[in-house]
């Protein structure tokens, strides 16, 4: 079955530290890739997406992600985190030819940023 793996369950960083959250998806052909974020008490919202083209994509709030096809990875990065980045981050994928484009999510990584 198609799946998404997020390597870290909970990451704790101090402000200004660099962030990298790992995401791997199972092989299944052509994919669209997403990172969603859920701030405390809020709904899931799109952080960034990759459909095609430049494998380095930039999202909101200084986040970026790199699609490495050979590694089936789509890691999320930010050079310097802020306390306001405290949230849960979900990697997600849709597979071309998959079920009507529904998202397959990873289990999420909770990020806690200490002020």
């Amino acid at each position, binding site marked *: 079955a198609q799946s*998404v793996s997020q390597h870290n369950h909970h990451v704790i960083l101090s402000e200004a530290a660099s962030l990298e959250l790992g995401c791997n998806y199972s092989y299944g052909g052509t994919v*669209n890739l*997403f990172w*969603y974020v859920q701030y405390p008490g*809020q*709904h*899931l*919202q*799109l952080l960034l*997406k990759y*459909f095609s083209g430049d494998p380095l994509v930039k999202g909101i709030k200084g986040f970026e992600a790199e699609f490495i096809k050979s590694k089936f990875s789509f890691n999320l990065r930010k050079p310097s985190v802020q306390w306001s980045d405290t949230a849960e981050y*979900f990697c*997600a*994928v*849709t*597979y*071309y*030819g*998959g*079920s*009507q*484009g*529904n*998202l*397959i*999510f*990873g*289990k*999420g990584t909770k990020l806690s940023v200490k002020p």
Partner: protein
Amino acid sequence: GAGVSQSPRYKVAKRGQDVALRCDPISGHVSLFWYQQALGQGPEFLTYFQNEAQLDKSGLPSDRFFAERPEGSVSTLKIQRTQQEDSAVYLCASSSRTGWATGELFFGEGSRLTVL
């Protein structure tokens, strides 16, 4: 509306009760999805509507789960004879797109169901 609206936000049910969860998507959005998110897990797909047509219900865990979107806008997820394992947050999401480009979804805040 400005976003996807779900109600109730919280629901406590006794085992065996029926529940109905409502989703009001962004106006004009063609695609509507329901997801189930258990504690500590990512959202898992339940069902998908394109307008009023339920095109995929492969994620519904049992025949106790039923969803409808009769007029292609508001959707209701119904769970009959609730069980403790049904306790989860039920998320609704919508998109103006169809097909495999619908992954850019707009989510509601969810309905948290607790079955005692």
